[in-house]
């Protein structure tokens, strides 16, 4: 065999089973050990969040708004120390969450379900906090925060907003309000003045008007100015319609999803479902009047109509804001962030007013409804119960509760302070452009309606949005849509 050089060469180049298994085993073992090495280390690598900062203090990780965390993290960090009085040995890392609120909620749900210790604290949409409370996934702040901080929240913060961070069963606090959000009606002063109205003299900024009067103004101003739309808003099949735009309109007519304000947060299964009622159907018919000009046998004959595009059926916040910013609409319903954008476009020609109403509170069918109603949005600070730095977290929360820090947030981000007293402060009034519109925001803040977030809200919101959209889209009558919604909401209220 060895005499043949070809054979010898071949034999030399081949790989025996023994050599192959040895080589594969050695490679696998090396790769495996390399991969697992960090598990056996002392945690000094850069992979995980560490409790000690570079200066020897404590690092607190705060799950935060994506854009703000990326653009203003350093300024926020400095403000927490300088304006909030946070100790220098505590460093805050802002961890950006997903821009989409629903996706961020899913991520936090996964983190907390798997008992991760970081982030130590979160910025949570007030619409989800109740769900996390029901699951027992948040630290009880009534047990963590000092009494002084708890009494400040109870006495000085907007009660309706704080309520969305409280466990309805125990009354304990699970979130500290960071900033509330409530919409107003934006409008073009120049266009309504051209139509013969005087918003300043009539105190539009602080005195809500009826939908009837408002609709006639909108229709007339659109006719006179020749712009494309009299009104732009959001009515897509998405959570914003259920929590906010439809909720506002039906509440302003004295209607309610669940029998009134006192049943917003339950008890699920024991509260009445009241969408198949006259105020709710009327509110939808009014929207149909605005969009299609229907008069429903003369019931809405003295309302203005046909000034709202069918596009609202597919619009959410940004898509409905675009035509207003482009100068193609007279009125626009949106959150405070839109005021900053519109003010930079129109300057003094931008006006704001509380949302109009259908019936006054005294005539509302369901308790706690009627009158101008703004849906309550906004964000709370919540705490990871698995965090190993609760003392530092408590200090960060207290720093964020300082008035100076809240005014800083208003100035830099346009985030409204969670306490009413700050709306009247000189600093707030001097801020550009938000300061010019603080009067309207204060009135809106006093007339908010929280979304009815319970453990079943996730199932209910898509059903509400779908039927509201179908009704205003004229696919079914308003009463048919609400009858369907009534039975499907009753189904969701049943026990599993």
């Amino acid at each position, binding site marked *: 065999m060895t005499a043949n050089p070809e054979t010898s060469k071949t034999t030399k180049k081949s790989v025996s089973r*023994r050599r192959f298994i040895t080589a594969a085993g050695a490679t696998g073992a090396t790769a495996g050990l390399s991969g697992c090495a960090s598990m056996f280390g002392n945690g000094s690598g850069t992979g995980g969040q560490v409790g000690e900062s570079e200066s020897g203090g404590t690092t607190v990780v705060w799950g935060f708004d994506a854009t703000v965390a990326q653009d203003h993290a350093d300024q926020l960090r400095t403000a927490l120390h300088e304006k909030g009085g946070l100790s220098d040995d505590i460093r805050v890392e802002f961890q950006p969450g997903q821009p989409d609120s629903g996706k961020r909620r899913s991520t936090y749900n996964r983190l907390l379900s798997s008992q991760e210790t970081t982030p130590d604290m979160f910025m949570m949409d007030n619409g989800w906090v109740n769900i996390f409370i029901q699951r027992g996934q948040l630290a009880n702040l009534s047990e963590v925060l000092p009494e002084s901080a708890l009494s400040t929240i109870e006495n000085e913060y907007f009660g309706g907003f704080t309520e969305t961070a409280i466990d309805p069963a125990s009354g304990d606090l699970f979130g500290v309000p960071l900033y509330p959000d409530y919409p107003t009606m934006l409008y073009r002063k120049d266009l309504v003045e051209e139509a013969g109205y005087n918003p300043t003299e009539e105190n539009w900024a602080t005195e809500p008007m009826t939908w009837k009067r408002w609709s006639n103004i909108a229709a007339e101003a659109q006719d006179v100015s020749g712009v494309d739309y009299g009104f732009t808003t959001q009515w897509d099949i998405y959570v914003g319609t259920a929590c906010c735009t439809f909720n506002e309109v039906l509440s302003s007519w004295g209607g309610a999803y669940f029998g009134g304000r006192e049943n917003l947060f339950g008890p699920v299964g024991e509260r009445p479902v009241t969408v198949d009622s006259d105020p709710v159907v009327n509110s939808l018919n009014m929207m149909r009047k605005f969009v299609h000009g229907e008069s429903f046998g003369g019931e809405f004959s003295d309302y203005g109509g046909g000034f709202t595009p069918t596009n609202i*059926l*597919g619009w959410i916040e940004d898509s409905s804001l675009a035509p207003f910013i482009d100068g193609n609409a007279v009125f626009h319903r949106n959150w405070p962030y839109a005021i900053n954008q519109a003010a930079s476009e129109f300057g003094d020609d931008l006006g704001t007013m509380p949302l109009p109403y259908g019936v006054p509170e005294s005539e509302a069918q369901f308790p706690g409804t009627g009158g101008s109603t703004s849906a309550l949005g906004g964000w709370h600070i919540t705490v990871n119960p698995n965090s190993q730095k609760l003392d530092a977290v408590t200090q960060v929360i207290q720093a964020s509760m300082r008035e100076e820090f809240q005014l800083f947030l208003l100035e830099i981000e346009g985030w409204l302070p969670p306490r009413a007293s700050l709306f009247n402060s000189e600093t707030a009034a001097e801020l550009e452009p938000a300061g010019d519109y603080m009067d309207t925001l204060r009135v809106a803040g006093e007339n908010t309606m929280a979304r009815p977030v319970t453990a079943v809200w996730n199932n209910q919101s*898509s059903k509400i949005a779908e039927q509201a959209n179908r009704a205003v889209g004229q696919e079914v009558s308003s009463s048919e849509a609400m009858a369907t919604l009534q039975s499907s909401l009753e189904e969701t209220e049943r026990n599993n």
Partner: protein
Amino acid sequence: MSADTTSKPARESRQSGPVVGFLRWLENLSDTQYAYLLLTPVFVLLGIVAIYPLLRTFELSLYAVSTDLSSVRFVGLDNYVALFTGEKNRFLPGGTTFLPTGLDAANLLDSALVITLVFAVGSVLFETLIGLGQALVLDQDFYGRRWVRAAIIIPWAVPIVIQGMMFFLMFDSNVGFATPILADLGVVAPTNTLNDTVSATFIIIVADIWKTSAFMALLILAGLQSINRSLYDVARVAGASKWQQFRYITLPLILPTIGVAVLFRSVQAMRVYGIIDTVSSCTVVPSLSCMVVSTFNTHEGTSAAIAFVTAAIIGVVVMGIILWQGEDAI
């Protein structure tokens, strides 16, 4: 012991110990046994990434969360019973259902199962026909064929989110141009287009056909190019027309390839989710995967039951296609 090992005496060594013993055992394995040994890591990996999640999903589907989301309890197969009796429809988005609650169009289009099947059949059928046409063209010799092949593959390379945004913007009420044109032809609803189930389903099927026909074309082209060209020479000499050449040579020989392509595409189509989420919403176009995603955050057991049933339905469809292909199946 195999013939190999009986015909040759086992290698002997004076060395001993567990490693040496193992290597000696290794070298005395038959070729078949050795092949299975080398495949063992693949089986282990497959078990970890495919079998374990399936079993874990089934386990999750045996539990239900309480109404207040605070506790989980074992319910056996109740989630499956409730799913098929319509009890779970209240947890699904909007007015959607798992099975159709009636045989009229509205009820059928509310059903996740029906929408998924309509999407799968519609998209795979047209993708196969268009892909076959593209493959037949690409199989010809013409100037610039290489560039045409590259151009055809471009839609397939576009990420789903980008593809979804393209079609969303085409029908968006602010900037879209397609709605008035197609609405005049009666193809889509003139208003609220992306919230109309029929219109949105049609748009999503078209978007999927646009993207995935290239995938079918490439697979079928591979089959076409494996056909012996001399068969066509023989057919021409025998006086066969172009249609007869296609009918009696091309089609039978590429049918197994088409079968494989249809199999892959059907599995993908039955899992449709991304394009729905970006163009419209799961409330408007309910697919089975949509139902899984929509319920996962609040009703894990229901979500897992739908996922397991979806996997079973895909399994049945795949078995059907394999049986249809007979001996030519993969």
